[in-house]
Every structure is written in C-alpha cells, then in structure tokens.
C-alpha cells in the first residue's frame, strides 16, 4: 500500500513475505482447508514472534512497532496475507489488542493483552448480530446489572475465528448506550456455533450468550461509554481488511497478466487483443485506486484524524465494490480454467468476496457516508 517504507519497514515487509511464502503457500492453504480450515496455533505463534499481534499494544504490555506507526506496520502483514490468502486471526486479535491497550485496566492488560501479543491467547470482537449489521445502533445483545455482576443475553453473529478464540470482546447494549465486556470463551452460558464460510480457511461463527454472568471487572473501559471504542475498532478492522483485499487483487491481476501474455489464441497472445488490453487497463486503474484509497484511509485512522470515519467508509465502499468485480473479470480472462477448483482463482475470489460483506458492505458504507454528508 504505502509506496515509501522506511528501512525497518522494508526489512519487515521482506521478512513477512518470506515467512508466509514458506509457512503458508497456497498449497498449505488448500491442505489447511482439507483438514477443516481455521489456522494452526504454531503458525500463529511464529507470526506473533515477528510482532503480528504486538503492533497496537503498548510496550509495557508486550507491544512494539516497526516504524512507530503500529497500524500501518500491521497493515503490511495484512496485505501480504491477502497476497497469499493466508489464514490467521490478524484483524480479530489486533482489534481487541488495540482496545485493551487503550482502555483495558491493569488486570485485563496483565491477563489478556500480553498473552495476545505472544499468541498464547487469541481474541475476537463479537459485535454484529444475526441481521448482519455493523451499525452500532443495531446492537441488541443486552447487558443487565445484577448486583455487582452483569448478565449478558443475546446472540452475536459473523464473529471471526469464533471457534478458536479464548476470549471475546463483546459489545452490549446497556440502556441507550453501549458497553463492552471481555468474556472468556469457557464462561458458563457461552456457546460457539460454527457456521459455513465462503473462505477456505477463515472461520466464522455465532456466539450465543444465555444468562452469562460476568464480574464488573469484565467491563472494558467505562459503562455506557463504548461508542468511541466501537468506532475505533471498526476502523482498525477495516484498515486491515482493506489491506488484505488490495494485497489479494494486486496479486490476482499480476498472475492474470502473466497468463494472458503466455496463453496463445489464433496465433497470438491473449494480451495482444485490444478488447482484453482495455479490460486490463481498467483493472490496473481500479487496483491502483484501491491501493490509493486504502493507504489514505489507513493513515487517517493511524493519525486518528477527524475525517477518519469518512475516509474509512470511502475506502471500504470503493474496494468492496471493485475487488470482487476485478477477480471475476480475471476469472473471465482465464476462460474455463477460471471456474475450476484446481485453479487458485477461487481462493482469492472467496477471500475478497467475503471481505466485501463483513464489517459493512459497500452499500452499508455508502449509507454511512450519506449520513456523514448531512443527507
């Protein structure tokens, strides 16, 4: 995404790419799928050793960045993971780590955040509900005060890596406001219901809360004060999702170009036909535009700019619109092999199509923009 990486980021980028090419080439992704999907904990720990879960955590809690701008550093990992449609709870863990670093109390940071950075624990954000909205106003899962404790009731859906998570960051409704809770997966009354996922290795599930009792110490931040954290978490998740998607589409365009230059029809390469050249030109334009807007949005979230909500929705709306269309066009340009299991295209199509619909669709983000524009 970023065209100008500093020396340390450059090194980090090269190390990340090499690590993924070795530990998680496409053949490994397919093998992982055959074995049930999800991600290997050892692989995730190896990534954590490189800092994949540490970039948004304070140093005192085991955190550390490459460039001082942690979100942009972990976006480098996300983009490389997109390039190889790799498994792993990168966004899931980093979203929670970011909030715990900012709002977690001493115990939460000591017991959970440190373990997240090492990969010992995996966390995920439980926010959307069965209706599939990432609009904070649609949260219905209720948290009711019961003496000194809280009772949680409701269902969270579309929770990334729900079956692998040791702890959930749950966004609940407390009266007219939102409160977030850190809830271990083993808490009585918490049930994870795995769902089918379009992606070959990324798992999603429902997390059902039936009379789940948690202590007051489970509250993250202040009661009724979670709206700002929810917005920040959405932004962080989207920066990493966008980075992953642009990594994927850039790679797909690249190997489709190679294919069209090699493959001959009627005596000349496919890439010499003007109709196809023009399609490639359009796709190059769209890919560069996706890269550009993902970068600008990422920077605005890193800097906590006042227009970060607008820019992240611009980026998501544009990328969600274009990315699946680009990969589908590349399927078209491959002809029949483009719709086979054997060809790698569907691995990418699955990832970008899923990303387009999670954390808000293009349509959802356009609706958000209309509101921000005062419509």
């Amino acid at each position, binding site marked *: 995404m970023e065209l100008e990486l500093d020396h340390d980021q450059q090194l980090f980028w090269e190390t990340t790419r090499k690590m993924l090419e070795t530990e998680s080439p496409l053949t490994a992704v397919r093998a992982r799928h055959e074995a049930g999907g999800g991600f290997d904990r050892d692989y995730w720990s190896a990534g954590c050793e490189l800092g994949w879960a540490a970039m948004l955590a304070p140093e005192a809690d085991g955190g550390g960045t490459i460039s001082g701008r942690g979100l942009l550093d972990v976006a480098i990992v996300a983009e490389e993971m997109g390039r190889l449609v790799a498994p792993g709870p990168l966004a899931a863990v980093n979203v929670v780590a970011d909030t715990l670093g900012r709002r977690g109390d001493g115990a939460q940071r000591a017991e959970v955040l440190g373990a997240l950075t090492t990969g010992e624990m995996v966390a995920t954000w439980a926010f959307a509900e069965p209706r599939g909205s990432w609009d904070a106003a649609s949260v219905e899962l209720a948290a009711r005060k019961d003496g000194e404790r809280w009772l949680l009731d409701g269902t969270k859906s579309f929770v990334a890596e729900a079956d692998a998570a040791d702890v959930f960051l749950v966004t609940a409704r407390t009266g007219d406001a939102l409160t977030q809770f850190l809830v271990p997966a083993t808490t009585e009354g918490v049930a994870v219901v795995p769902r089918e996922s379009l992606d070959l290795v990324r798992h999603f599930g429902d997390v059902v809360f039936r009379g789940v009792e948690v202590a007051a110490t489970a509250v993250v931040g202040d009661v009724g004060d979670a709206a700002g954290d929810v917005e920040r978490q959405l932004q962080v998740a989207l920066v990493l999702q966008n980075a992953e998607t642009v990594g994927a589409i850039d790679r797909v365009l690249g190997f489709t170009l190679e294919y069209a230059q090699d493959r001959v029809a009627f005596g000349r390469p496919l890439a010499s036909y*003007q109709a196809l050249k023009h399609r490639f*030109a359009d796709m190059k*334009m769209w890919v*560069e535009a996706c890269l*550009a*807007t993902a970068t600008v949005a990422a920077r605005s979230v890193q800097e906590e700019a006042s227009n970060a909500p607008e820019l992240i929705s*611009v980026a998501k709306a544009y990328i969600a619109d274009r990315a699946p269309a680009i990969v589908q066009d590349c399927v078209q340009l491959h002809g029949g092999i483009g719709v086979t299991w054997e060809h790698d295209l569907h691995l990418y199509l699955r990832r970008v199509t899923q990303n387009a619909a999670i954390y808000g669709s293009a349509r959802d983000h356009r609706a958000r*923009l209309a509101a921000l524009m005062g*419509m």
Partner: protein
Amino acid sequence: MTIDTSVEDVEESVDAFCARARAFLAETFAPVGSGHDPIGDALREHGVEATYVERGRQAQRWLHAGGFAGIAYPREYGGLGLTPAHLRAFSREARPYDLAGVGGLFGMTLGMIGPTLLDLASEAVKARYLPQMISGDELWVQFLSEPTGGSDLAGAVTRASRDGDTYVLNGSKIWTSAADYSDYGVCLARTDPDVPKHRGLTMFIVPVDAPGLEVLPLRLATGDTGFCQEFFDDVTVGADQVVGEINDGWTVASRLLVHERNAVGGGSPYHDMALGGGFGPGRGQDPRQGMGLVALAKAHDLGDDAHARQLVAEAHVLTTVARHLGERVQVATRLGELPPLAGSLLKLFGSTTNVRTADIAMALAGASAVVWEATDGETPLGVSYLFRQATSILSGTSEIQRNIISERVLGLPREAAPDRDVPFSAVRHNAMPQRRRDGR
C-alpha cells in the same frame, strides 16, 4: 522530468507557508458565497468587463503580486521553487475563497505547456516565456489536433516549410480550447514529410495574433463556444521560435501529453487545475460533486430516499478516490514505481468518474433537468449532460488512454501500426475537409 519534491531540502516549511498563504488569501480574495467580489470590482474600476477570462487573469496577477504564483516553478523563471506538497497545501487553504477559476483558466499554460518548456525548451525560450506565464500576463494554447486526425497526433499534416531564417506554416488545427482569448500557442507541424511520421515534426511557438492565423470559435452541442478551429495561411515564425529541436517535435508533443494527462487528472506537481473552483476532479461548487449533490437531492425532496442517498455517496466515493489516486500516481511516478505515462490512469479515472457523476446528477434531478426556469449563471444540468463525454474525448480519448495504460504501463503487446516506419508521404490519411464559402 525531475523536480525536487523532498520537503526537507526546502527552506520554508509547509506549515509556515500555509500561515503566510492564509493571511494573504484572507486579505486578497473574498470567501465563496460572501457576496463580495473584489476581483470584479478591481476590473470594473479599470473599465474592464468582468468576464471569466479577465477575472481569472486578475486572480493570477494578484497571486503573483502576493508572491504565490508558480509555487512549484523554479525561482529563476519567476516561480517560488517550492514543492508539490506546498502546491497542494495552497490549494487546500484556497478552497473557501473565490479565485475565479484561476486553476482552470491557467491549466494549459501552467499545468501543461509551462512544464514542457521547463523540460525541453532552450534557456532563451524559457527566460522569455515562463515569467509571463507565471505573472498571468500571457495565456497559452495547444495547436495539436487537426480536422484530419485527433487521436493520431503524429499524423499531423500542417506543414512548416523552411524559408531562410523562418518557417512558413500552412494547415488547420482544431479542438483548441481558448484560442480566442490566448496570446501564444505551441503548434505541432510537419517539417519533413519524407521520413516516418514521428521523425518529421517540430513544435513551434506561434503568437495567436500572427498575420495569416485565423481563429474560428466552434459552437458546441450545448450552444456554447468552447473550442476553436484555426487556419494557418502562410503564417511565418522565426526558426528560433521552437520548443526543443527541429524534427524532434514528437518528443515535445509526447511530453506535453504526459503533463496534460497528469494535470487533467489532478496529479500535476506544477499546477492545480481545480484551484479556485476551476475545471478538474474534486471541485467544490459543481452540482455533480460532493456537497452540490447533497443540495440537489434535498432540493428534490430526496434527502430520505435510500437510493438517492446511495447515489450521492457513490459520487462522493468516486471523486474522493480520484484525489487519492492522483496523490498515489504522483508519488509512484516520482519513485519510478510507475512510468511517467501512468498519468493516463488518472485521466481515465477522472473521465469515467465524470460520466458516472453526470448520470447520478441527472437521476436525482429528474424532470427538472430537462425543463427548467430560465436563470443566469450555472449551465443547466440537462445542457451540461450533453457534454458528458467531453472529458472522455479531450486530451486523448478513453480508448487511447486504455491503449497507453495497457502498452506503456502494463507492457502488453502494441497494436499493429502499418504507418509506423514508412515515409509519411506514403501513408493513408483522411482528406482535409474543403473550407466552405461561409468559412466553416
């Protein structure tokens, strides 16, 4: 084509520059919608009609007098020698003010032709012409396209015959914006018809009021004049009035087109065409853009209409992403990550965005776009819809841009060209249309 873009090497920081700019702008120009018109007032005081051209010229003169003209142009030619970051910063500070579309008016002069002179002209030519461009005293046009060919620029048939120390030009140029109010033009003409087409061209500098040069404004489908056709009838120019070398005009034309596509796409490191609300992606008051569309939707009671909200947001996404792409292409070409011709990515994105936003505006306006109450001022929406294809055609059609992107940016095989290495005199081309008695 290198300019120093590293902010660290420059004396005045962007922040300090912005502070000065803010003070200057507040002192000199009126905020948009304030009802004040210092530019118009100054012109009227001097007995000059406050037309679009005169207002823009005045704005440029004031920028120059205030020390804010030619921000990224070298100091030795009258510029400030600052960076594209300073240029962008000035545009941001200027957004709330009425600068009379100065960016658009001087778009060709300072965004396209000026940078080309910087890259390829002799010191004598640069010293004579650049300062007057920056000061707002001289406006320039491009005499490139011809009635016999627009896309095939290298196929120009306008002839320049040597006669001692001068060249004599004969032929016709067309689609020239602004020839009717400009001072100088760069003119691509054929100096040697017996070599392959790309090798026999020269870029001349021609005063628009030269004897033998007739400018004919063309009427557009919208009813406006906007482009011109020119007839060159034994127009003489000095042999030193060239940009670059004799017979190397194609190098100059190619460079000019790169600058043009960058400028039109919003990615020029020399000039912001959108400054002061001028032509270009991301301009403020256009009803097809940003907050203008919000106002349009509300005016038609569509504020709560879900589909209308989607359309308004879609337009905002496209115009915002266009700006992001402009920044990226600028940095990428500076770093060599993308070739200079990557400006075509911007041009294509800008024009496809314009097409889509034109459609969105029409969708929101409904019947009021096609039947309306007469007012002064802005072009009615339905009429501007007639010009929807304009930016997909001018400065190289979208089809040509796709050829450039696929061939020069992606490196895909070039189109077959039967005229590439053959003497120009042997190539098939369109017949020059006969000029009618009524001059058309």
